[in-house]
C-alpha cells in the first residue's frame, strides 16, 4: 500500500519537468504531480540571470528566470499540482501492477510513498566536481564549481573572490567569467584541456572576447598553491595526449579557481529503478517516445543527455509529457514489430533516441547528438539500411554544440518496406564533403 496514487509523477521541477507537465496536461493527463527538491520551481534557470534563452520557443531573448516564469505560469494556470522542498529518495517497479513506486520525503510529511502509472525523469544534471578532475595540490578554500559560484553571486549576492582563474570552458564557466568581471573581479584566464572549447561560440564572444579574457586551449592546471586559502595556480600547456608539457608552466596568482569541466546527468534514481543506461551520455537509453527500458518511465532534459540550449530541453520534455499522457490514456498506438537501431560512428558520439519503432514515431522525429571533435567543412551523412537518407553540409561542428537531424516517417517507411527483416539500422556519421 502506498500513501498516494497518481497517474503521472514528474521528478524535477526545472525546465524539463515544467514543460513535460504542461504538455502532459494539455494532452489530457489529469492526475499529475511534480516533485521538486528546491524551494521554488524553475531549477537551474533561477540562477541563470543572463539572456539568450527562448529564441526558439518564444521567438524572443529571455533571461533564465523569465524563461522559467513562462512555464511556471502555465503550470499555475493549469492548476497542475507540485510539491516543493521534497526529495525523491527511491524509485522502484512493481512487477505485479506495472506501477512505479516513488519514495519521497519532506519536512512536513516525513517519508511517504506514491504509486504512479507513469513517471517522467527530469532530474537534470550536476557539475563534475574537483574530485573527478585529479588536480594535484592542497585543498584550500577558494575552489568552486562554476555553478556554485553562480549561486553565491546571483542568488545570495556574495562574491567568492577577487582574482579568478577558470578551468574548463563549459558554458557556465564562460558566463561566470563575465559575471565576475561585472562584479569587479579580475578574471585572469580560462584554461581548457581540450584543443577546442566546450562552450557555445556566442559565449566565447560575449563573455571572454568582449572583456579581453584569454582562452588558453590545450592548457590545464597542474598545481594548486595555498593551504588555507588559494594563493595561485600553475597552468601548463598539454600535448596531443593531454599530458602537460614540461617547461610550459606559468604561475597565476589568484584567490579563486572556478571549475567548469562538464556536467553529469543525475541518475541515481534511474539506477535504482534498473533503467538501462548509456555510458556515453550518462543518461538512459530511450526509444522514439523517450521511454526508457522500463515501460511507462520516460526521461527528458539534462538527466537524459546534457543539452546546450534550454529550448531543446523544453521541446524534448514536451514530447516526453505527450507520450507519458498517451501511455496513461492507453493511446500509444500499435507497434508492427519493426525496429530501427541508430548507430553513431566516425565522429558522432551518441544519439537520442537510440532506438526507433517506426510505427510509433510521429510524422517527423528529431534525433539529437553530439560530435566528439571540432570539424570544419564536413558533411553529416545519414543512412538507413545502407541507403543514404540525407547529407547535410556543415561549416562547423563542435562538441559543445548539439546537432540534430529530422527523420521523416514516410521516407523511413518507404525504405524499410523494401526489407524482409524487422530489424533495421540508421547510421549517422561525419564524412568528407561529397
Amino acid at each position, binding site marked *: 500500500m502506498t500513501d498516494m496514487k497518481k497517474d503521472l509523477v514528474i521528478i524535477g521541477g526545472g525546465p524539463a519537468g515544467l514543460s513535460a507537465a504542461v504538455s502532459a496536461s494539455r494532452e489530457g493527463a489529469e492526475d499529475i504531480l511534480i516533485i521538486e527538491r528546491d524551494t521554488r520551481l524553475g531549477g537551474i534557470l*533561477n540562477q541563470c*540571470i*543572463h*539572456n*539568450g534563452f527562448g*529564441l*526558439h520557443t518564444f521567438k524572443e*531573448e*529571455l*533571461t533564465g*528566470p*523569465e524563461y522559467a*516564469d513562462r512555464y511556471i505560469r502555465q503550470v499555475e494556470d493549469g492548476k497542475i499540482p507540485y510539491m516543493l522542498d521534497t526529495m525523491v529518495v527511491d524509485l522502484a517497479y512493481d512487477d505485479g501492477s506495472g506501477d512505479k513506486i516513488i519514495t519521497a520525503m519532506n519536512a512536513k510529511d516525513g517519508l511517504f510513498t506514491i504509486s504512479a502509472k507513469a513517471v517522467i525523469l527530469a532530474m537534470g544534471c550536476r557539475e563534475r566536481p574537483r574530485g573527478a578532475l585529479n588536480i594535484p595540490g592542497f585543498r584550500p578554500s577558494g575552489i568552486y564549481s562554476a555553478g556554485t559560484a553562480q549561486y553565491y*553571486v*546571483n*542568488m*545570495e*549576492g556574495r562574491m567568492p573572490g577577487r582574482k579568478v582563474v577558470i578551468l574548463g570552458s563549459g558554458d557556465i564557466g564562460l558566463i561566470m567569467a563575465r559575471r565576475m568581471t*561585472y*562584479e569587479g573581479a579580475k578574471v585572469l584566464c580560462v584554461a581548457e584541456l581540450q584543443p577546442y572549447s566546450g562552450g*557555445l*561560440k*556566442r559565449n*566565447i*564572444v*560575449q563573455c571572454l572576447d*568582449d572583456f579581453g579574457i584569454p582562452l588558453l586551449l590545450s592548457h590545464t592546471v597542474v598545481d594548486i598553491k595555498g593551504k588555507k586559502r588559494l594563493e595561485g595556480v600553475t597552468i601548463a600547456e598539454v600535448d596531443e595526449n593531454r599530458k602537460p608539457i614540461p617547461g610550459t608552466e606559468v604561475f597565476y596568482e589568484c584567490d579563486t579557481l572556478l571549475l567548469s569541466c562538464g556536467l553529469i546527468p543525475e541518475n541515481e534514481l534511474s539506477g535504482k529503478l534498473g533503467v538501462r543506461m548509456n555510458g556515453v551520455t550518462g543518461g538512459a537509453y530511450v526509444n522514439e517516445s523517450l521511454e526508457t527500458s522500463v515501460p511507462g518511465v520516460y526521461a527528458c532534459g539534462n538527466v537524459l543527455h546534457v543539452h*546546450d*540550449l534550454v*529550448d531543446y530541453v523544453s521541446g524534448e520534455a514536451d514530447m516526453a509529457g505527450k507520450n507519458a499522457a498517451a501511455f496513461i490514456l492507453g493511446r500509444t498506438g500499435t507497434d508492427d514489430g519493426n525496429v530501427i537501431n541508430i548507430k553513431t560512428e566516425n565522429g558522432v558520439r551518441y544519439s537520442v533516441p537510440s532506438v526507433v519503432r517506426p510505427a510509433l514515431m510521429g510524422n517527423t522525429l528529431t534525433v539529437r547528438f553530439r560530435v566528439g571533435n571540432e570539424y570544419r567543412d564536413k558533411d553529416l551523412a545519414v543512412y538507413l539500411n545502407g541507403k543514404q537518407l540525407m547529407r547535410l553540409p556543415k*561549416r*562547423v561542428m563542435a562538441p559543445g*554544440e548539439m546537432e540534430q537531424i529530422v527523420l521523416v516517417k514516410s521516407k523511413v517507411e518507404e525504405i524499410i518496406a523494401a526489407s524482409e527483416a524487422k530489424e533495421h539500422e540508421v547510421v549517422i556519421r561525419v564524412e568528407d564533403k561529397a
Partner: protein
Amino acid sequence: MDIRELTCIRCPIGCHISVEMEEGKVVNITGNSCPRGAEYAASEVTDPVRTVTSLVRLKGGARPVVSVKTAGNVPKDRMMDVVAALKEVELEAPVHIGDVALRDVAGTGIDVVVTANA
C-alpha cells in the same frame, strides 16, 4: 577590400559570418542563416551593442539581490558604466518581472528592468 570574420550572437546557433568591407562600409555579408544575422554582422562591425544582465540589491525579499537586464541593447563600450550604475540601485520587495529598476541607465536612453519575481 577588408574581410571581417565573426560569430553571430543573435541566437544560440552561432553562425560564422564573413563581412566584406570597403572603405569602412559593408559591401557583402555571407554565412548568416537569417536576416537577424546580417543585421548583427553589419552592426557589430560598425556600432557593436550588447544587452547587459546583472543584479541590483533588494530590500525585504527572500534573497538580498534580484536579477535585472537592460530593456534594449546598449553600446558595447558602455557595458561597465551600466553595471556601475546598477551598484547604486536598491529596490524594495516585492518586485515583478518587467518592473523598471532604473530609467535611462548611464545616459544610454535604455531602461533597466527586473527579470525575476522576488
